């Protein structure tokens, strides 16, 4: 985990994660990401190569075209960002998705 100063002056934390989900960041996985960040008041962005997505936006996330094996950078800004990134890392690092 690394910590950077964001333009607003707050702490931006980031993590690198290798996407292991067998189908990549497809619609169901995106909706799971949206749900995970839904209760968080801060901001979370996910970068994949040169693309960057607001993790609360289905449309943004789908446009990452993140295939299995992609390296993702998770960035969180705001109180409670660390456990959110932890949850995201855990989800994105598993090969088989929960069927809930």
């Amino acid at each position: 985990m690394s910590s950077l100063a964001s333009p607003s002056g707050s702490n931006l934390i980031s993590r690198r994660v290798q996407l292991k989900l067998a189908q990549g960041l497809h619609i169901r996985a995106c909706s799971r990401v949206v749900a995970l960040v839904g209760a968080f008041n801060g901001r979370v962005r996910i970068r994949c190569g040169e693309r960057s997505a607001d993790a609360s936006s289905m449309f943004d996330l789908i446009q990452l075209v993140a295939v299995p094996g992609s390296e993702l950078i998770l960035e969180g800004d705001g109180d409670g960002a660390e456990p959110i990134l932890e949850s995201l890392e855990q989800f994105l690092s598993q090969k088989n998705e929960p069927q809930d």
Partner: protein
Amino acid sequence: MRLTEFVVKEAVLPQLVAESKQAAIRQMVGSLKGNGKIREADEEAIVAAILKREELGSTGIGRGVAVPHTKHPSADSIISTVAICHGGLDFESLDGEDVYILFLLISPPDRPGDHLRGLETITRHLKNDDFCSFLRQAKTTQAVWDLLQEADESHV
């Protein structure tokens, strides 16, 4: 990837009337079959697979859009059809709103990248408010097709 590369023009349903999302999906798959894009023998399996996928979570992704989909071995490449439901359809969407624009996708099972690029192409254009609004108003296959072509040309 361009919309007109994988959307089957003849299978577009510009005035879909359906009582349920299941009925809408059945009509869209039927339209692909009716235009020779999928075999009659595969039709039921494809409908069942799309409905099973919907049970895992709605593909109504917000902004009045749904992208029901499946992967099926009969697909050599990604194919899609578009339906416009002018009256709105309850699709159990993530945002709770009715759906007016449906893109149904069938992809080969072994190429997740193609599937993701198809989804990216669709959502990239549907983020454009004008495109979304004009598509919702389209009432003929040609009107839908013209909009898809315009979208492709504006992003080449």
